[in-house]
């Protein structure tokens, strides 16, 4: 193994040097499309096997891939740096950051990355390489983290602001989390510092809640989020509440509990309230329904000034990545539409689990338009593995490459996928 590497490394270095500046004309899909099922004309390859919990990722114009890991790997690094060869396969060329987390984003010459309580930024050089890996600026500190929904996802707008999800450390703000029949706490106290999106300045060090703005509230947990450039607006994907049947078995059947509530896409404006924990969205009745913890019965509609979702998807699929496609590689219908990485459910048992795929949601004039469709399927490895919840791979982060390829990370085995369109 060692000797193999000895020969392999110099060859690899030469390859990188030769092809670093070339465009990706030699990228071909793997023979089995990396195990994925895709629409006609698309192909996929495994860019790298990181063997780590690869959460969100970002690809630079120079073909470097920065991958945020949930936890530092065995070398103590929680941001991996990969570089792609001309054939699309990438090598691990470095790593830094000692904090696990989910969020990573590049904007205006800086790489931003989050732990589960803080956000850092690193200055980039003209080649989009991090200049000082060991001394990031701490932008935000002291964010709330409980025992649930602790990850912080990040995105920036075009006006110097950064948006951070602070997930609610609770399922439905019950007096006793997830306990049979336990009712909701009046005026849910979690919402003062979690269960929403906070806005901070992108360039100001050491900001705490006091310097931030609670931009939108009533969002249980958001992992996938993106800035829509057409609308100049923040879009987020909420993870809906769990366990309707477990907690209120007399009101909800096992089957209803597996399907409800919807996983919602929200288009947010400053001051919006999406209604958690007081309500959930029922995608079958197309209604905002009062949560049983707050007096609901599965039918009563929510009372309150809560926004409607922009789009709704089946329950518990766990949307972990959202990306508006602005590239030119894919056919016209994909332009400005949304890709959503559904990590896959757990809270459907004993009903079959679902998800473990990347969905495409068509958009027109900056709004969801028409039905969503499964775009990339079979991350699980087989329908049986998806149904049992024992998936081989679980899609998490999404990124767009400079040529318009779509990258998908997997936080189970750490595979990095690249999906291309072959004309």
């Amino acid at each position, binding site marked *: 193994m060692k000797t193999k590497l000895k020969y392999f490394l110099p060859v690899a270095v030469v390859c990188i040097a030769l092809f670093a500046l070339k465009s990706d004309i030699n990228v071909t899909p793997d023979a089995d499309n990396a195990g994925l099922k895709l629409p006609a004309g698309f192909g996929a390859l495994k860019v790298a096997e990181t063997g780590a919990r690869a959460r969100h990722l970002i690809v630079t114009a120079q073909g470097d891939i920065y991958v945020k890991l949930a936890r530092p790997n065995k070398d103590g690094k929680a941001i991996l740096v990969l570089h792609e060869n001309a054939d699309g396969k990438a090598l691990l060329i470095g790593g830094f950051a000692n904090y696990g987390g989910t969020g990573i984003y590049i904007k205006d010459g800086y790489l931003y990355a989050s732990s589960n309580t803080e956000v850092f930024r690193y200055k980039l050089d003209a080649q989009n390489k991090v200049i000082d890996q060991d001394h990031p600026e701490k932008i935000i500190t002291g964010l709330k983290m409980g025992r*649930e929904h602790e990850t912080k996802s990040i995105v920036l707008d075009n006006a110097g602001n950064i948006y951070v999800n602070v997930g609610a450390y609770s399922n439905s703000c019950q007096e006793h989390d997830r306990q049979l029949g336990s009712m909701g706490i009046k005026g849910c106290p979690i919402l003062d510092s979690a269960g929403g999106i906070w806005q901070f300045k992108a360039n100001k060090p050491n900001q705490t809640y006091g310097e931030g703005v609670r931009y939108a509230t009533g969002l249980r947990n958001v992992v996938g989020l993106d800035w829509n450039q057409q609308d100049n607006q923040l879009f987020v994907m909420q993870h809906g509440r769990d366990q309707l049947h477990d907690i209120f078995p007399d009101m909800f059947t096992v089957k209803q509990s597996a399907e409800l509530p919807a996983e919602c896409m929200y288009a947010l404006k400053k001051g919006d309230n999406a209604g958690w924990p007081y309500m959930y969205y029922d995608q079958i009745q197309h209604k905002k329904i009062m949560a049983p913890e707050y007096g609901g019965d599965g039918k009563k509609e929510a009372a309150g000034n809560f926004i409607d979702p922009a789009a709704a998807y089946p329950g518990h699929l766990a949307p972990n990545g959202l990306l508006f496609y602005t590239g030119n590689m894919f056919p016209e219908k994909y332009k400005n539409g949304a890709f959503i990485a559904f990590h896959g459910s757990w809270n459907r048992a004993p009903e079959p689990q679902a998800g473990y795929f990347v969905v495409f949601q068509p958009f027109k004039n900056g709004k969801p338009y028409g039905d969503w469709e499964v775009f990339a399927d079979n991350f699980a490895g087989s329908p049986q593995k998806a149904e049992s*919840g024992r998936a081989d791979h679980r899609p998490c982060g999404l990124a767009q490459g400079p040529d318009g390829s779509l990258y998908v990370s997997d936080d189970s085995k750490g595979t990095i996928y690249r999906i291309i369109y072959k004309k």
Partner: protein
Amino acid sequence: MKKLLAAVILLPASLCVFAQTKPKTAAIKPGIPASIARGKVVYTKNCLSCHFVDGGGVPNMNPPLVKTSYVLGDKTKLIKVVLNGFAQNVEIDGETYSNNMAPHNFLSDQEIADVLTYVRNSFGNKASAVKAAEVKVVRAANKK
């Protein structure tokens, strides 16, 4: 002092209750296979949604119940997991989990004994049965 007095009064009282319900408890079939069968029903209703039908749990969220140090280890500790729930920032056999298990103290001593006997004899586990009397002792000590 008050406590002691209460115990002196309550103890015979509870023995009376025990004696009265004896015909009922005798209806519960003895033996490990019967306990496992009943435990499976309790598991399906109360535990399966998080720990899954195969006891494998959910990565990073709900721990597996397959040969873990809790499942195969000290019974008192195991009974307390069910009675009190589990929401601690501790490692379970080298992994951490971000979810909260609620207390299941609404289950009877017999139900807790059955479900733990089922868990300790399923998913590849092999361990001694948990008895209702053992749960009763832990529950009583737990209340103090």
